């Protein structure tokens, strides 16, 4: 059976999902959070919050104790902050992409997120914000080692430049191990963030710099961006290899199975729902799915992160509380993608 190619244009960067920059800073003369007592952590928090409010009056502190109650709050980057009232996140109503984690691993971690992987675009904003804060706070800094952090692993610039990418092409060709090993040898950190709850891997990866000293911030950011761009170009080639060297059915099977699960499941957890939607997004990118656009999938993905909205909208009429959220997510998925179907265009 032969399929006629209908459309085969490469998106700007297929699989580029998001970017994040994080600067870790500590205050001079204060113990690092993991060794500090509660009053010491509280004092640090007050200093940071005051400085942040002087720069932007919309700054609000949300303690980690109560963060789960905040609608749609998802952590930008992975971390293990101490669970207490003096540790938390300063959010800015004026700019939801900007955030300060207080008393996590370090005293403060300035974070800026973006939708694509244009990290240089957000670096100037982050740099400016950091400079404004440094005029109000006394940072721990050494002329030789740069910004001093709680662990020596991110000393120097104390910068984390991270991109979130989806690599299903490499997954279908079973080449992901080679890719991650190569990136590891080039001193980049690669982490798979697929949920174990979902039987279909979405091949979601975070790529970030491992080295933080010896070069300036812009060089680190440009290197991460360059590596991600090259990787995504290779990913596009891998997707084409799947179609032309193997079979379009391999890809259609991968997307179709996820779509069938999303349409027919009765219990779906939040992470599984998000993962299934990412596979659907891949199908839309590859023109394998009809009845939905990329923007619509992104919108559904945005709603899927707000558990309370989903539960309020779809969680009525269920008696068993432990399954209420899972049932709400299943209903939400069924409703959102009811008109979506597989279409072989190749």
């Amino acid at each position, binding site marked *: 059976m032969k399929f006629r190619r209908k459309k085969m244009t490469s998106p700007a960067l297929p699989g580029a999902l998001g970017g994040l920059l994080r600067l870790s800073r500590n205050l001079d*003369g204060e113990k690092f959070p*993991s060794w500090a007592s509660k009053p010491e952590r509280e004092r640090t928090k007050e200093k940071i919050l005051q400085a942040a409010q002087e720069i932007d009056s919309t700054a609000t502190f949300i303690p980690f104790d109560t963060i789960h109650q905040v609608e749609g709050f998802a952590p930008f980057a992975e971390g293990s902050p101490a669970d207490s009232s003096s540790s938390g996140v300063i959010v800015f109503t004026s700019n939801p992409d900007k955030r300060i984690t207080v008393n996590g691993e370090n005293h403060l971690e300035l974070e800026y997120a973006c939708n694509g992987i244009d990290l240089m675009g957000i670096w100037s904003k982050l740099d400016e914000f950091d400079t404004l804060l440094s005029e109000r706070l006394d940072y721990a800094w050494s002329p030789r080692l740069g910004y001093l952090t709680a662990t020596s692993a991110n000393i120097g610039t104390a910068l984390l430049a991270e991109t979130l990418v989806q690599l299903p092409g490499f997954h279908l060709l079973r080449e992901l191990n080679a890719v991650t090993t190569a990136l590891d040898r080039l001193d980049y950190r690669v982490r798979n963030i697929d949920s174990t709850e979902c039987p279909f891997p979405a091949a979601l990866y975070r790529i970030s710099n491992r080295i933080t000293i010896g070069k300036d911030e812009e060089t680190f950011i440009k290197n991460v961006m360059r590596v991600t761009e090259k990787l995504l170009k290779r990913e596009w080639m891998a997707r084409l290899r799947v179609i032309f060297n193997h079979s379009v059915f391999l890809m259609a099977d991968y997307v179709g199975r996820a779509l069938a699960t999303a349409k027919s499941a009765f219990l779906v957890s939040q992470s599984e729902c998000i993962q299934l939607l990412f596979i659907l997004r891949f199908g839309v990118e590859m023109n394998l799915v009809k009845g939905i656009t990329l923007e619509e999938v992104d919108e559904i993905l945005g709603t899927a992160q707000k558990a309370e909205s989903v539960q309020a909208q779809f969680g009525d009429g269920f008696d068993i509380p432990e399954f209420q959220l899972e049932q709400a997510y299943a209903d939400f998925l069924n409703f959102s993608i009811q008109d979506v179907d597989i279409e072989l265009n190749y």
Partner: protein
Amino acid sequence: MKCEICHTADVETVYIREESGKQRELYVCRKCAAREQEAAASRKPPRFIISAGHKGRSTFRPVLDLLFDKAFDIIDHAIKDKFRPSVDPSCPSCGLTRNEWRKNTTLGCPVCYRAFGRELLPLILDEQNADRHVGKVPPKYRMTAKRDELKRAIHAAVEKQDYERAALLQEELDALQSKSKRRKS
């Protein structure tokens, strides 16, 4: 983490080395640990000599030696335990000890970098392939950083015998220093 002796293999075990009566914990690979143990065994003097008596008859001397050795050992340990100085170095600011830092991998405060600097710098160099910061400087330290950079550049120019460049850099440094003095006054 790399072995503290050979700096090539990964750490597999902890070896306690005695240095001038003090104990020091070393994080080492198995090969280096075995080598250290062998070296320590060869350095140890024989505790007693079993001597055979005349005409092959054994005497009580070895047994007595053994008893005396044991007795002295017990007294020695008791004295050492009582008057042993603190062998685990700690940070003067936060009090974090070296062993606590090695176990948790997180430092206690910014001063810890100075307190454990001798061990930290090779560790950073090993992890990151560099141990000198290049990049952003907080506004407060910009003048100091610029001065240090100029001093390093002058030193490098003098070593290369590029005296013209060194003189120019020296002028720049003088101007910077006079500017900072004016600002202070």
